[in-house]
């Protein structure tokens, strides 16, 4: 059963919409990310779920209950903000006890739970510290402890890692994910960082210009992008102009400068129309790595960039530049600039999209 359900959720400010007709179902215990560029409406969506913004239209359900009109304090939803929002006039213990005191819990019970929460986030002994005595990472742990100690039904996180430096960000990414898994708490995570979304999420909703454009598992989103926007926003892609020749079962046959080739493609691609063929750099095969099927195209190596674990090639095919990446493994074939080679790809790893 779904834990959160958004139905045609819309928020408009004056002329433009910040969020347009978002429909979404998030399962119990699921880690769901809203991923998209800055200004696409992620925070507005999250803040409507939290109850800080009243939707212009649409509904929000938690379980069976319509919570659209409930004030934030009656939603049983915890939120961690980008700036952590630690109360500066309270110490760590008082911050964490805040929600428990409001619930009129006995003092001894509060003390016990605060200690347990501090232990859970690895901040034992930090009780008496104030916000200004905490690092960014510590503030984030306090913010999480403060929310989790009240055992909310749903956890919302708005770009919680963006204020941390890179090393800590990597560490916290896995730490948050592990904690979420252990607690099995339904989580909505907002980020503009594709790496965060791909590594942490059970599913991702990609947003663009106030709308959700694709929902799927990280693998779906990365390997089967439905639109050019998703393709370009997540990872790097080679995008080639093709013409749709005909449909062929699940696949579609397209023509690239007269070379016909098979590709995965949306059902709405009409024969004779222009389309875009998308292939990820790591799926461009070169030389001896070429498989049985798929296109064979002549290309020239423009440059080879050594990046440690991977080697990156800039290739020229016809008038277009193509980027290819390969794992730098033992006995891997290397190509010097200027070499004429044959390239191709597995049709199952190429995607024809509406232009």
């Amino acid at each position, binding site marked *: 059963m779904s834990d959160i359900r958004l139905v045609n959720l819309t928020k408009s400010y004056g002329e433009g919409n910040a969020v347009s007709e978002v429909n979404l179902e998030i399962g119990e215990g699921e880690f769901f990310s809203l991923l998209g560029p800055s200004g696409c409406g992620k925070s507005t969506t999250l803040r409507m779920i939290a109850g800080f913004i009243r939707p212009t239209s649409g509904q929000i359900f938690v379980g069976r209950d319509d919570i659209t009109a409930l004030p934030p304090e009656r939603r049983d939803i915890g939120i961690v903000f980008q700036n952590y*929002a630690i109360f500066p*006039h309270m110490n760590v213990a008082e911050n964490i006890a805040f929600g428990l005191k409001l619930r009129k819990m006995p003092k001894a019970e509060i003390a016990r739970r605060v200690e347990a929460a501090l232990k859970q986030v690895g901040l034992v002994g930090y009780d008496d510290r104030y916000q200004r005595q905490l690092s960014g990472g510590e503030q984030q742990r306090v913010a999480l402890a403060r*929310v989790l100690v009240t055992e909310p039904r749903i956890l919302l996180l708005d770009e919680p890692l963006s204020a941390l430096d890179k090393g800590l960000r990597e560490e916290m990414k896995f730490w948050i994910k592990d904690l979420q898994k252990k607690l099995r708490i339904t989580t909505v995570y907002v980020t503009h960082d594709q790496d965060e979304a791909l590594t942490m999420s059970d599913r991702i909703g990609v947003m663009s210009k106030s709308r959700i454009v694709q929902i799927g598992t990280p693998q779906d989103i990365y390997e089967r992008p439905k639109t050019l926007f998703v393709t370009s926003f997540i990872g790097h892609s080679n995008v080639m102009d093709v013409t749709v020749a005909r449909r062929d079962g699940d696949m579609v046959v397209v023509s690239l400068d007269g070379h016909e080739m098979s590709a995965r493609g949306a059902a709405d691609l009409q024969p004779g129309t222009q389309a875009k063929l998308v292939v990820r750099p790591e799926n461009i095969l070169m030389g001896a790595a070429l498989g049985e099927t798929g296109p064979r195209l002549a290309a020239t190596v423009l440059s080879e960039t050594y990046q440690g674990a991977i080697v990156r090639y800039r290739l020229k095919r016809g008038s277009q530049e193509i980027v290819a990446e390969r794992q730098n493994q033992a006995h891997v074939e290397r190509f010097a600039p200027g070499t004429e080679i044959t390239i191709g790809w597995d049709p199952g790893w190429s995607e024809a999209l509406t232009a």
Partner: protein
Amino acid sequence: MSVTGGRIALRRPAFSVAEAFGGFRLWWLVLPAFLFFLAFFLVPLVSLLAISFNKTVPGVVTLTTAFTLDNFERIFTRSIYYSSILRSIGIGIVVAAIALILGYPLAYLIAKTEHPGRNTLLMILVLSSMQLDMVIRMYGLMVLMGDTGLINSALIWAGLIHEPLPLMYNTFGVVVGLVQVTLPFMVLSLIGIIRAIHPSLEEAARSLGASRAEAFRKVVLPLSMPGILAGSLLVFALSISSYVVPALMGGWKVMVLPIHIYQQIAESGRWQFGAAVAAVLFVTSLIAVFVYHRAAVWTSGGRT
């Protein structure tokens, strides 16, 4: 206005000619301000305080070395004087409280108004009340609140009252006048502090289970304390030292300390006694500053 200002890291001066010259030049820049402060504030104030320890001789303003506490003894033994001290303090506290109650919502509104046009409009509203001279503003209030003023005329015309209400020439009138004068100072003290409270703090409190009122009481209000204290101190100090407002709105019937000072010095030429009353007023203000400081430390929970 903030009591919890950031720490300023002082750079250790380097021993270079240019630096020393720069520092030397900086001293020259503050010198005029320092001299002005010395000549036109410190010297008169100290002489006034000094003269209060001389025996009162009407018409004489010469400072002598004959030390006496007669003036102070008179202030603290005659009820007309010591009751004025209490009246001044009482009015100061009441005015500060009213200005806070009226000013806080206004300051909150201005602080939370993001629309630039509306924000500017509200600020102009607050600041415009400070543009006119206080005397002119008091005459405006008198037109409103006098026995034949707008309020009384309207109420009599409506048949709600038969005799005019005593709105002026009493403590009520003085309090209204002082609130009118000091309200902008309260609002300006509060705006910056309230604006510095990040909205996410209030939201965090709400989602942790606090109602709007609880979030205000437990988060916004405690964090507004530096502004509340600074504004209250400012309003209190302005109120107890105001002469124009009690003179015009109180019609010399509300005897507060500045009225005594004016009467003693300007009317009776009793400089020494007037100076003693001024000294009491000055010390009262200093005590208020001390109370403010203690309260600031206390409300910040002992954190700097």
